[in-house]
Every structure is written in C-alpha cells, then in structure tokens.
C-alpha cells in the first residue's frame, strides 16, 4: 500500500503527458524547429512553478511526509559530463521523439514498438555503466 501513491502520481503524469501531446514525436520535432510555443510553455511553466516550490521548500525548511526536512542535494558541477552526456541524450531525444518518461507512456498508448526503444535504452545505460571509468566526467 505504501507504493500506491506513486502509482497514482505515475498515472497522473502519464495522462497529462498524453493529453498535452508531450509524448508525440511531432511535438518534439516542432520544438527543435522552433515552430510552436507549446513545448516551451509546458517545460517553462513547470520550471517557473518548480522554482517557486523549491524556494518555498528550502526557505521554510519544509518537512517531508515522514517528518524529515526535505533534502535536495546539489549536483556537482563539471563540464564534460553534462555537456557530452546531455548532447548524446539530445540526439536520441530528437531521433525517437521521446525522452524516457514518454517512452513508457507510449507503451500504455499502445505503441508496443517503444518496448524495443526501451530495451535499447537499457542496453545504452548498461554500456555506459561498463565504460564510465574511461569517460571524462
């Protein structure tokens, strides 16, 4: 039962990204072509509200459900990791039109071929795990 709330959140996320067409390959192509405000509106409004929420959490030292102060760990800054890793992901994102969330949501939408993309994504993550000591971070 303690996992039920995560299931509900996932369902809300899956419905929202489907209904707002974020899972559509066309919307991602259109975004990278700068031909519509839609995707920028989705991500931008999420970030603006997210900044407000995060600031409130930090300034009020808000407690989580379990009573501990909510901890948002900072990410260690470096150039190669985020720039190279981010670029590789960006290439795949524009190609498949799906970041990891939409890949799973599209399976629910009935596009079972996305299971192949997910399997390939698992392999990509595994290969990263094997090579990571040799990559610049």
């Amino acid at each position, binding site marked *: 039962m303690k996992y039920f709330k995560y299931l509900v959140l996932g369902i809300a996320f899956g419905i929202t990204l489907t209904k707002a067409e974020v899972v559509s390959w066309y919307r991602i192509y259109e975004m990278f072509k700068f031909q519509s405000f839609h995707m920028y509106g989705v991500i931008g409004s999420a970030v603006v509200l997210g900044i407000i929420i995060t600031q409130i959490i930090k300034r009020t030292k808000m407690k989580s459900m379990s009573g501990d102060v909510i901890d948002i760990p900072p990410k260690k800054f470096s150039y190669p990791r985020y720039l190279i890793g*981010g670029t590789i992901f960006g290439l795949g994102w524009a190609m*498949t039109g799906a*970041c990891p*969330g939409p890949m799973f949501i599209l399976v629910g939408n009935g596009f079972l071929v996305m299971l192949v993309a997910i399997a390939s994504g698992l392999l990509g993550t595994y290969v*990263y795990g094997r090579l990571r000591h040799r990559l610049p971070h």
Partner: protein
Amino acid sequence: MLEFINQPWPWWVAGPIIALVMFSLLYFGNNFGVSANFRNMCSMLGGGKSCEFFDFDWRKQTWNLVFVLGTVIGGFIAAQFLMLETQIGISEATKSDLVGLGIANPGAEILPPEIFSFESLLSLKGIIIIIVGGFLVGFGTRYAGGCTSGHAISGLSDLQPASLLAVVGFFIGGLAMTWLIIPSLYTL
C-alpha cells in the same frame, strides 16, 4: 468539465501538473527522475553481477519503478478513455516540413506510422531511429546523470548550473539531430 478533459490540454495545464508531480515526489521523500529507472531495471535484470554500477539494492528504488508502471497505466487510460481525437495540433510550418521528409499525414496520429511500427524495424531507417535512438537516450541520460525530468524540470527548478549545462547539451544534440541529421535520415 468532461468536454475540457477530452480536448488536448494546453501547456498551462500540463506544466503546473508536472511541477506538482515533482513536488509530491519531494514531499514523499524522493525525487523526480524517470531515467534512473533504466539503471534500476539493469540492476533488477542482474547487471550488478557483471558491473559494479548496477550492484546496488534496486528494491530501495521500488517507488520509482511503481511510478513508471503508473505512467504506462496513465498512457493507457488517456488513450482508451480520454481521447476524442488523436490529431496532434502541430503548426502548419511543421506539417509542410514533414511532408517534405516523406511523412504522409503529419499529426494525424501521435507518432508517424511510417517509422514507429514493428514493420519499420525491418528497414534501415526504422532500426536506426528506434534502436540507435533508444540506445543514445539510455547512454546519454545516465552519462549526464538525468533526463528531462531530472535536469530540465527538477534541476532547473533548483537553479543548478549543472542542470542548465545538461539542458544546453540536450539542445545541442536535439538541434543537430533535427536540422542536420533527420533530413537525410528520414528520407533514407
């Protein structure tokens, strides 16, 4: 109300809901990051035996795997009960660009059927887009330590310079693919 739900949702509905999902996960003592599940699944499938990166107790990440299961169910519910039409409201400019790339009815369905089907896996174009594309997503997200949810939403919300750099990377890759590679790839 029902009429509103059945229409495509505007950005100003979707964005705030995504932010609230992020907040709920923080409130429950976790964080918002879908791509971490690729790593969790590698661990679940026994990847820890051959690679220490996957040698951790994935059961502690069960909440995130349940979240992903929920997203699949959410996609199913939306597709089955909440879509009066699947027409995607992309701009006319986008449609005409895509017709030029050989996509017959851009926006008629969620995904271009010419590419996202099992039959297309028999063609070089389909193999590259689905299999190589999926691989790049899995490799790149873990290298960068997050995807759209972890960096573009959670990281930017926390004003993390690392996430801003990651998002710059997402766009370098995405723009290069869309403007330089897709025109030749999709007309293969």
